[in-house]
C-alpha cells in the first residue's frame, strides 16, 4: 500500500482521516435515511471500495428483555409491537405462541384462522414496505408511492380490526380478542384481487430497469455457508439456496392445511432477494385466499370460540365475567397478579416476514418470566454486513442494507 501523505487535510463533515495512508473511515449513519433506522456503519474505504465494515448498533436499545422480566405475561404483549414495528402482529403472535406452548393450551380453530389472516396481512405489509423503502433508496420513487398505497389499504383493514395501524397488539395469549369485522373479508378480497396486477406493476417498473439491475444483480452475494454460519433466516437464507420456511417445516397454526410454495434461489445476491420478496407476496395472497374459505367454513360450522378455555391462565369470555362470580374472580386475579405458567422453558420459532423470530422463555412458576430472550432475525442480518460489505462500493452499501430488510426496533430490541 502506497503511503501517500495527506498533506492537505481537508475538513469534510462526517469524514475523518485518521491514518497516514489512503484508507479513510466513513461514518455511515446513524441518521442516514437509507440506514433504515439507527444503523451506524463505520466503513474503511480504499478509494470507493470498502475494505472493512463495522456495524454499530444499539441506538434504539430499550431493554425489552429486561422489561419482560418485570412485566406479567399479558402486559408484555404491547411491548412486542415495538420490535418489528413494520409487522407488529407477527411479534405479538410469536410471543403468544411461546406462552401457549409453555402453558400447553390449544387455540380454537376460528382464532387460528384469524391469526393466520393477520400474520399474512402483516407479511404483505412488511414486504410492501420493504419494496417501497428499498426502491426509494435506489431512487425508484414511483414504486415507493405505489407500494405505500397498497400498504395503506392493508393498514386500513388492520385498523378496522384492532384500531391501530402500526402497533397492533391484535393477538392475545390463548387466541384473539375479537372476531373480524363485517367488512374485513370483502375488503381483503378486493385487495387480493388487485394484488397480482399491483405486483406486476412493480415488476414492470423494476425488473428491466437498468439502474435497479446494476444495484441488484451480482451485488451482495451471500453464499449458503455464510448464510448458515451467520444465522440468517427467512428470505435472506432462502435467497442463498436453502428452502427453509418454518411455516412449512415446523408448521404452527393451520399452515399444514394450506397450500403454498416456498420460493428460493441459489444466487444469493440482492436481485434474488428482491425476486423472493415478490414471490412471497404472491404466496401470501394464495394463503389468504385459502384462509378466507377456512373462515367461511368456521362460520358455517358455528365455531364461535375465539379464546382458549384454560381458566388457570386465561380469562373467561366477557359474558361469563359479567355474569358469573367465579369467572370474575379469576379475571381479577389474572389481571392484577398475572398468570403463573408452569416451571420450565421453551423456545418457539415462528416465521416472521424478516425471518426466524424466536422467543425463549424461562419460567420459574412466577407471574414474571425469569428470563426472556428475543431472537430477532434482523440482529444477525445486520451482523452479516461485517463480512458482506468488504469488497463492495459505497453505492452498493445502500442496496445491500435495503435487501437485508433490517428493522432497528428488532435489532436493538
Amino acid at each position: 500500500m502506497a503511503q501517500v501523505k495527506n498533506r492537505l487535510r481537508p475538513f469534510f463533515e462526517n469524514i475523518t482521516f485518521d491514518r497516514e495512508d489512503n484508507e479513510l473511515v466513513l461514518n455511515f449513519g446513524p441518521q442516514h435515511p437509507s440506514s433504515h433506522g439507527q444503523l451506524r456503519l463505520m466503513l474503511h474505504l480504499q478509494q470507493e471500495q470498502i475494505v472493512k465494515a463495522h456495524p454499530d448498533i444499539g441506538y434504539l436499545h430499550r431493554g425489552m428483555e429486561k422489561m419482560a422480566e418485570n412485566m406479567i405475561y399479558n402486559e408484555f404483549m404491547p411491548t412486542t409491537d415495538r420490535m418489528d414495528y413494520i409487522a407488529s402482529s407477527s411479534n405479538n403472535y410469536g410471543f403468544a405462541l411461546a406462552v401457549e406452548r409453555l402453558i400447553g393450551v390449544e387455540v380454537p380453530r376460528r382464532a387460528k384462522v384469524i391469526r393466520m389472516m393477520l400474520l399474512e396481512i402483516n407479511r404483505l405489509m412488511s414486504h410492501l414496505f420493504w419494496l417501497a423503502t428499498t426502491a426509494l433508496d435506489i431512487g425508484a420513487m414511483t414504486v415507493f408511492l405505489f407500494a405505500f398505497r397498497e400498504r395503506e389499504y392493508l393498514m386500513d383493514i388492520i385498523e378496522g380490526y384492532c384500531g391501530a395501524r402500526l402497533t397492533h397488539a391484535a393477538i392475545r395469549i390463548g387466541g384473539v380478542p375479537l372476531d373480524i369485522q363485517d367488512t374485513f373479508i370483502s375488503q381483503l378480497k378486493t385487495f387480493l384481487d388487485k394484488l397480482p396486477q399491483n405486483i406486476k406493476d412493480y415488476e414492470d417498473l423494476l425488473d428491466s430497469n437498468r439502474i435497479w439491475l446494476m444495484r441488484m444483480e451480482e451485488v451482495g452475494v451471500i453464499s449458503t455457508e455464510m448464510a448458515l454460519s451467520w444465522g440468517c433466516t427467512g428470505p435472506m437464507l432462502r435467497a442463498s439456496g436453502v428452502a427453509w420456511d418454518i411455516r412449512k417445516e415446523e408448521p404452527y397454526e393451520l399452515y399444514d392445511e394450506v397450500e403454498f410454495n416456498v420460493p428460493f434461489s441459489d444466487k444469493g445476491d440482492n436481485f434474488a432477494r428482491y425476486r423472493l420478496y415478490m414471490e412471497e407476496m404472491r404466496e401470501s395472497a394464495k394463503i389468504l385466499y385459502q384462509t378466507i374459505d377456512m373462515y367461511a367454513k368456521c362460520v358455517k360450522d358455528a365455531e364461535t370460540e375465539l379464546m382458549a378455555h384454560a381458566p388457570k391462565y386465561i380469562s373467561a369470555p366477557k359474558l361469563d365475567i359479567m355474569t358469573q362470580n367465579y369467572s370474575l374472580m379469576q379475571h381479577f386475579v389474572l389481571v392484577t397478579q398475572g398468570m403463573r405458567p408452569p416451571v420450565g422453558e421453551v423456545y418457539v420459532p415462528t416465521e416472521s416476514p424478516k425471518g426466524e423470530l424466536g422467543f425463549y422463555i424461562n419460567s420459574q412458576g412466577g407471574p414474571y418470566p425469569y428470563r426472556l430472550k428475543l431472537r430477532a432475525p434482523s440482529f444477525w442480518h445486520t451482523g452479516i454486513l461485517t463480512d458482506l460489505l468488504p469488497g463492495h462500493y459505497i453505492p452498493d452499501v445502500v442496496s445491500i442494507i435495503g435487501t437485508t430488510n433490517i428493522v432497528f426496533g428488532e435489532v436493538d430490541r
Partner: protein
Amino acid sequence: MRAYTPKDDVQAKAYYTDRYYVAPQVPKSEVETDEVFAADLAAIKARFEVKEAYIQVEQMVIFINPHDIYGVLELMRDELAYTQLSEMSAIDWLAKDNTFEIFYQMLSMTKRKRIRVKFFINNGEAVDSVEKLFRSADWSEREMFDMFGIEANNHPFMKRILMPYDWQGHPLLKSYPLEGDEFAAWYEVDKIYGKEAREAIGPEIRDTARVDRYDSERFARLGFEVPKGTKITGDEPRNSQEYQEEGGVFLIKKYTKEASTIVDDPQR
C-alpha cells in the same frame, strides 16, 4: 421498619405468593422417546460427558461441561447436521448459587430438530467462544458480554454491542434495577457537563419527561396552563390552542365533517 429487599435480585416480585403453592412443571420426556434425538445424544455421549438430557416441548435439552462447548458444537455441526446456531445467551442465577446458565439453541434443517445445549459457569468465569464455528456467535457473545458481563475467550472483538462503550454495569443482571442505577440516571449529564454539574442541574431538569404527580401547578391543568411559580387562584384564563385557522389558510381547507367524503376505493 423498611421492608427488606435482596440486593442480588431487584426485579419485580410477585405481590401475592401462596407459601403452600407448588408450581406445576412443563412436562419432560425421556430422550429415548424420539429416535433422532436418541441417536444424536448417543453420538455426543460417545465423546463428551453429558450430565443430563431430556426432551421438553419437542426440543432436546442437554447439559454438558463448560470446557466441552466448542467440541460439542463442532461435532453437532460437522457430523450431526446442526448447521445453525439460532441463539445463545445466559441466565442469571447469581442470587441462587452464584452461577450463570449459558444456553446455545441449535437447529438442524435436514432433521427438522432443535437442541438446546446448556452448561453452568461460576460468576467471573469466561466461556469459550464458538465464533470460529458459527459467525452468528460473534454478535451473540458480544451481546451476552454486554448484558451479563460474561466474557468469551478467543473472541475477536469482545466489546459492548448494544450499550454505549463507556457504560458501567450489565443491564440484564438481576442485581441491576429496571430503571437503571445512579450511573445510568446521570449518564448524559456526567458526559456532557461533568460530574460536578449534577448538583447544579438537579434531578428535575435531568429528566425532561419527569412528571411530578403532586405538582398541581403544571400537571393536569390542560387548557389552563400557568408558568411555574404562579399562585393558583382558580380563575386562570383559558389559553386555548387553535390547530386550524378559522376559514382555512392558503391551499388548505378547514375540515368539516359534513363536507368530507368517504373513499370506498383506495385505488381510485
